[in-house]
């Protein structure tokens, strides 16, 4: 079995990864509820028309409001956002999954895409990220 299958004990945390568990689900309820509402076009338009008022309607926490205002995806996740729901907000903001990936990794979008393509050429994730980061 290759090395990448040797998993450490489950208590060890996973680098660069937040598990959306009960604690996050509790913390992020309002933010995710707002994102869930974006399944309806009228709600997306209401958000776009008055972002402050719409966030207030869902009682976002200050940390959530700040992360949304700053388009800070890692901040949204730290504030309990779940990517399956956040993806709907990203759509409103005109961000695709690669834009979001770029924002979270700190890579430029083209760098993030190149990192994905490098993995497609057989490079490891770590190597691909290192190259994208440092040329």
């Amino acid at each position, binding site marked *: 079995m290759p090395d990448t*299958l040797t998993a450490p004990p489950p208590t060890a945390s996973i680098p*660069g990864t937040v598990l959306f568990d009960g604690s996050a689900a509790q913390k992020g309820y309002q933010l995710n509820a707002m994102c869930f509402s974006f399944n309806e076009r009228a709600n*997306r338009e209401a958000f776009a028309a008055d972002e402050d008022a719409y966030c207030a309607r869902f009682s976002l926490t200050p940390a959530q409001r700040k992360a949304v205002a700053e388009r800070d995806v890692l901040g949204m996740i730290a504030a309990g956002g*779940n990517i399956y729901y956040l*993806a*709907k907000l990203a759509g409103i903001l005109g961000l695709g999954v*690669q834009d979001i*990936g770029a924002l979270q990794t700190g890579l430029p979008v083209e760098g993030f895409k190149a990192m994905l393509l490098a*993995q497609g050429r057989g490079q490891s994730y770590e190597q691909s990220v290192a190259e994208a980061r440092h040329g």
Partner: protein
Amino acid sequence: MAELVGAYFTSHVPGIGGAIHRGDQETPYWKPFFDGFPPVREWLEAMRPDVAVVFSNDHGLNFFLDKMPTFAVGAAAEYRNADEGWGLPLYKSFAGHPALSWHVIEQLVADEFDPVTCQAMLVDHAISIPFELAYPDAAEWPVRLVPIGINTVQHPLPSARRCLALGRSVHRALASWPGNERIVVIGTGGLSHQLDGERAGFMNPDYDRFCLDNLAADPDALTRHSIEEIVRLAGTQGVEVLNWIAARGALGPAAVEIHRNYHLPISNTAAATLVLEPV
């Protein structure tokens, strides 16, 4: 007697729907992925299933955190797609098969599973895209749907072992179904990918190959990893492999691989396509 013709597995990345819409199938970026499907289509044409039992996960369309199921079984007469938040064109609706759904539910509860039973259910791209790929020219889907949802969104997720057992219980239901339908089992999602966090963009072909190599002959091998280990190995959304594991269980004890395709990246995802037949 109903016949279980086999199982079809595929990734369900939303971007696939965009590629189909734009007609990008032959572009260099998409061709290695779409080239995996003519064999699937030929196989389905030969097998002519008329019912599909589909294991997938909701992407925040049908369920919210107010009431989040671990396992949800559809028992509706019709399943509509709906706006998932991006205002995209809607996918075609599915006719349901409520009688078979209830038969599956009865078996699951008898086998000590605790499903949510859904007489009304929306379906998202995780169900629609596999059909768009399999039946690109269909005016309407040639199969009736029994959708089974697995929680991959909010931890604690059901273990791989539990998902395999779920599938095996569904297999018992299909094996005892008195109808004469031809049934295909479908598992959608994965393989390795991670959309969120600083590790966004993570993929792991080693783990994916481990899954693909073992799914037919030794699916229990995939249950040796805990959920946390699967997240580490496959990425936060790579846990969608749970849908594959459950679908493999539903195929029955022994299976053989008929077709495989694997290509990355498709969007942020390592995309795989697989067809298994029972033996």
